[in-house]
């Protein structure tokens, strides 16, 4: 968020709504209405005095009413932009015409009670909808007692209860009486998978995982004795590493999983807050249990506000109120030029929302590529002064921050102290050091007094260092000659009751900053040119989609495919879960790839060697025509996965046992055996969710349900059984599951320790399983048995090693961050997408491919990579050649130079963590900007001054 708020080319329009969208893709006019904030954003310094003085307390919606806020408020403490706003609905001034406490106390005169709503228009080429979801309101049903029983909370409320920044600081209590619960129940599928009017038929897709997470964290916070029980129908932990988490929650954390249908909730006794839960267990027996707290795992829905917005934008919605998209263009809304990502296009979790966000950016960038850079702002600075031969001349600027610092810390005393420090030649106190006029003055003072180092004692470098560094640049000084002392966030704000001690601490912090400042050196940054070409490894659907998008964005692409044809596994798929024809789509995609002049396709090609790093890779490929070296700036790994060949259930031994892909092939060929078959069975989780493959293959439940429906199309009278462990038809795939059940497909659950038994009966097969409702064994004779075989990785160790990227325990490529960087690797310039990351359906592979293309384009579009700045540098004379640094570097930025016998840092890859400097026995690596001399000087200065 901070990055977004600070980005030169992102303009944040808060409190703003879209009123109208006219024009067409590439040339839209968006009419916006901006509600009054009543606070001048340029003047507000986020100090919070207004909220402290505001006499009006109201429910805090961020904490879902579990805490109070004031009528002038920040939504939460990390808000971007960090500017207060007045809520006119509750503000006393707007009700009664008097009060104005905020205006009176605001130290920067930022309050503007005359602020008015504005209506204005902007010109854009594309629109991205990222409006999120609304939480389901369980109050619409009597059943759950929500709103009536204080012992019942929603999962979102519980999230705030668990949060360290929440109303109870992470202490697990029942909100009403602050009792520490001994037993908590989570009820799944509240408002989801429910056909009652007011609820939703679809699966919200995220609640199983968040309930497990909440149960595990609740036990961490409240202690292992807490009884945490999750009441569920099917456990839908279908994402990467989700099943492992589920297993750990059950077997290590001791979370109780109760497969059940909940019947009713009632108070345990008339005057008790405890809740009696009645439910039917998986044996069909009615049970009851008392809980201190019941958490409703509420689903995700499209709000009415969102539906109205889409109507204004002329964007079509699906039957559930989310935007309607095609599986082949998963982030493209019905109106050309409008894109959608996140829960606005259907319920989904964080990693997939992040992927879609990048994908929407890629899709928009593909359309707008001719206009790239036309509106971008860049800055120019005067040349830097050489200070290398000068004695340090340090200027110290001590900020009052209105009364934020000076209200606690004696700023004049701190300034006087600064004057006494070595090398300090100029000291000044400012009301607001960050204000524009002070910045201008600072530039002048630096010139006038010949300062060559600057220390600002104010707020945090994390928010303000870039601003002051820019001032350094404007004054002709290297930006690394700047240092901050954080005497607000880490002093006056946290020691408000101890002004003397806080003043002493402020002096110490200034002493440390000055000590370091005297030893600062100018650091150089260089822009190295890159090869603005991409290499995509894998010509399956994901690789094709990534290549096409990058080409549309204007970059040459090499698409490397090991076989003779493009398309990968998608070649064998018949339709998407929505019934769209995969074959026809592949043909169109392939034609576009071959027509696209920027794409070079290398078939029957394999990668034999990779040299270089981000911006300047050299990859050697071997084809039938010999070897070739390709220069490229980025690589996208899209090597896919494969269907497991089962050893279970007579596969390979009996012609009636086939896998899902073979079944799709039979459907495509209209194999006469399908029409002849009267009874068919599907067995789910064949090879998945086992000890040696402890993950869910994600696509098989939907595939089998879809297959069962296809079979009923062929013969409506066919008898079809689906034997499953948990039915994982997430999102609106659940509608297919409903449909299959309604049309007579028999779904029967089996457990991992009581698997179905298959025996050959001549041409037929006998399938024995245990019926969980009747609690007795059953056997059916089937003509065809379709196995939902696991999806396996290619375990491509050599490719992983060549691009220096990791594989996880299951052989999937491991991304840089599972939630927030789902298509990046820790190694810069290499990206991933498709099933090489984890099994996933086609629409998710395409979205991820577009996301990888977007991330790759962030490197390609710059044209250069930055080298230098805060990086490590190895002094060759000190290096003993032990290579400890090579091994500890998390970014693989250090290589050992064999002939020189020393380690060398690649300044493009180095992130400046300094791990090498700490690990080296000879102190050969120097972390520039944080070197040992500087750190020792800081340590000594502060401890001596005590």
């Amino acid at each position, binding site marked *: 968020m901070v990055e977004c708020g600070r980005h030169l080319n992102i303009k944040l329009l808060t409190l703003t709504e879209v009123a109208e969208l006219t024009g067409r893709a590439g040339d839209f006019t968006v009419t916006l209405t901006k509600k009054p904030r009543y606070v001048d954003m340029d003047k507000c310094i986020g100090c919070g005095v207004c909220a402290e003085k505001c006499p009006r307390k109201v429910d805090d919606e961020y904490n879902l009413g579990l805490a109070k806020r004031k009528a002038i408020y920040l939504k939460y403490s990390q808000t971007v932009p960090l500017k207060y706003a007045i809520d006119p609905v509750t503000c006393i001034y707007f009700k009664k015409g008097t009060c104005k406490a905020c205006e009176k106390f605001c130290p920067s005169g930022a309050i503007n009670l005359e602020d008015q709503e504005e209506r204005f228009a902007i010109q854009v080429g594309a629109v991205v909808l990222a409006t999120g979801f609304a939480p389901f309101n369980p109050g619409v049903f009597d059943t759950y007692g929500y709103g009536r029983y204080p012992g019942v909370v929603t999962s979102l409320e519980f999230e705030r209860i668990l949060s360290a920044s929440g109303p109870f600081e992470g202490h697990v209590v029942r909100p009403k009486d602050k009792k520490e619960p001994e037993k908590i129940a989570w009820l799944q599928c509240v408002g989801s998978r429910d056909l009652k009017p007011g609820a939703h038929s679809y699966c919200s897709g995220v609640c199983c995982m968040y309930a497990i997470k909440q149960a595990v964290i609740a036990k961490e916070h409240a202690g292992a004795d807490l009884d945490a029980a999750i009441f569920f129908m099917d456990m839908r932990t279908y994402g990467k590493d989700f099943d492992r988490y589920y297993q750990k929650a059950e077997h290590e954390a001791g979370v109780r999983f109760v497969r059940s249908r909940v019947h009713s909730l009632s108070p345990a006794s008339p005057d008790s807050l405890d809740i009696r839960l009645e439910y039917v267990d998986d044996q069909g027996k009615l049970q009851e249990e008392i809980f201190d707290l019941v958490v409703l795992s509420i689903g995700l829905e499209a709000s009415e506000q969102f539906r109205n917005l889409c109507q204004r934008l002329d964007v079509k919605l699906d039957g559930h109120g989310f935007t309607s998209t095609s599986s082949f263009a998963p982030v493209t809304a019905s109106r050309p030029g409008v894109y959608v990502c996140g829960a606005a296009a259907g319920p989904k979790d964080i990693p997939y929302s992040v992927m879609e966000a990048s994908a929407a950016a890629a899709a928009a960038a593909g359309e707008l590529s001719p206009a790239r850079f036309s509106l971008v702002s860049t800055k120019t600075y005067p040349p830097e002064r050489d200070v290398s031969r000068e004695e340090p001349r340090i200027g110290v600027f001590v900020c009052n921050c209105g009364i934020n610092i000076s209200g606690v810390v004696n700023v004049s005393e701190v300034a006087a102290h600064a004057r006494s420090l070595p090398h300090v030649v100029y000291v000044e106190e400012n009301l607001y050091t960050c204000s524009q006029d002070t910045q201008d003055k600072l530039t002048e003072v630096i010139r006038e007094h010949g300062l060559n180092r600057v220390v600002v004692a104010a707020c945090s470098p*994390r928010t303000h260092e870039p601003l002051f560094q820019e001032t350094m640049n404007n004054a002709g000084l290297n930006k690394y000659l700047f240092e901050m002392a954080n005497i607000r*966030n880490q002093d006056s704000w946290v020691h408000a009751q101890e002004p003397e001690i806080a003043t002493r601490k402020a002096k110490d912090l200034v002493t440390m900053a000055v000590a370091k400042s005297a030893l600062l050196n100018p650091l150089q940054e260089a822009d190295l040119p890159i090869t603005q070409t991409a290499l995509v490894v894998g010509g399956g659907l994901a690789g094709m989609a990534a290549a096409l998008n990058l080409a549309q964005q204007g970059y040459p692409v090499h698409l490397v495919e090991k076989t003779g044809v493009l398309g990968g596994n998608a070649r064998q798929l018949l339709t998407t879960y929505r019934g769209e024809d995969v074959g026809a789509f592949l043909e169109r995609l392939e034609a576009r790839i071959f027509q696209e002049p920027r794409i070079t396709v290398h078939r029957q090609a394999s990668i034999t060697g990779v040299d270089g790093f981000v911006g300047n890779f050299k990859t050697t490929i071997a084809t039938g025509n010999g070897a070739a070296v390709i220069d490229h700036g980025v690589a996208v790994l899209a090597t896919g996965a494969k269907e497991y060949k089962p050893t279970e259930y007579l596969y390979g031994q009996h012609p009636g046992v086939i896998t899902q892909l073979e079944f799709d092939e039979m459907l495509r060929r209209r194999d006469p055996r399908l029409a002849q078959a009267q009874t068919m069975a599907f067995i789910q989780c064949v090879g998945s969710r086992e000890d040696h493959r402890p993950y869910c293959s994600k696509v098989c439940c939907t595939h089998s349900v879809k297959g069962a429906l296809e079979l009923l199309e062929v013969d409506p009278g066919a008898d079809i059984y689906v034997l499953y462990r948990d039915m994982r038809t997430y999102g609106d795939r659940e509608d297919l599951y409903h449909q299959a059940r309604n049309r007579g497909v028999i779904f029967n659950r089996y457990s991992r320790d009581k698997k179905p038994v298959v025996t050959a009966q001549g041409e037929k097969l006998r399938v024995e399983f245990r019926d969980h409702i009747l609690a007795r064994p059953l056997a059916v004779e089937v003509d065809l048995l379709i196995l939902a075989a696991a999806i396996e990785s290619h375990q491509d160790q050599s490719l992983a090693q060549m691009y220096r990227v990791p594989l996880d325990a299951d052989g999937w490529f491991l991304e840089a961050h599972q939630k927030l960087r789902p298509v990046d690797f820790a190694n810069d310039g290499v990206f991933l997408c498709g099933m090489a990351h984890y099994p996933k359906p086609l629409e998710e592979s395409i979205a991820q491919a577009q996301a990888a293309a977007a991330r790759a384009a962030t490197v390609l579009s710059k044209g250069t990579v930055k080298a230098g700045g805060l990086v490590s540098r190895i002094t060759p004379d000190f290096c003993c050649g032990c290579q400890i640094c090579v091994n500890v570097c998390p970014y693989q930025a250090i290589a050992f130079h064999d002939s020189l016998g020393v380690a060398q840092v690649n300044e493009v890859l180095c992130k400046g963590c300094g791990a090498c400097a700490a690990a080296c026995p000879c102190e050969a690596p120097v972390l520039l900007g944080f070197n040992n001399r500087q750190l020792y000087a800081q*340590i000594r200065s502060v401890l001596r001054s005590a």
Partner: protein
Amino acid sequence: MENIRFEPQILAFVCNWCAYGAADLAGVSRLQYPANVRLLRVMCSATVSPHHILRALQSGADGILVAG
């Protein structure tokens, strides 16, 4: 005998990306804590070596916190 309460001097090495940000947030949230700690910002807690810790203890620190 003069009765002076012992006040420890604590030096904290804090990672710029997490612990330093957390300390900033403690300020925004106005959480109050004892003022005996002096924060030293580093780019990663991995950069803190035993030498830094020993040097701090030699210079008179009573306690060291490495947060990252």
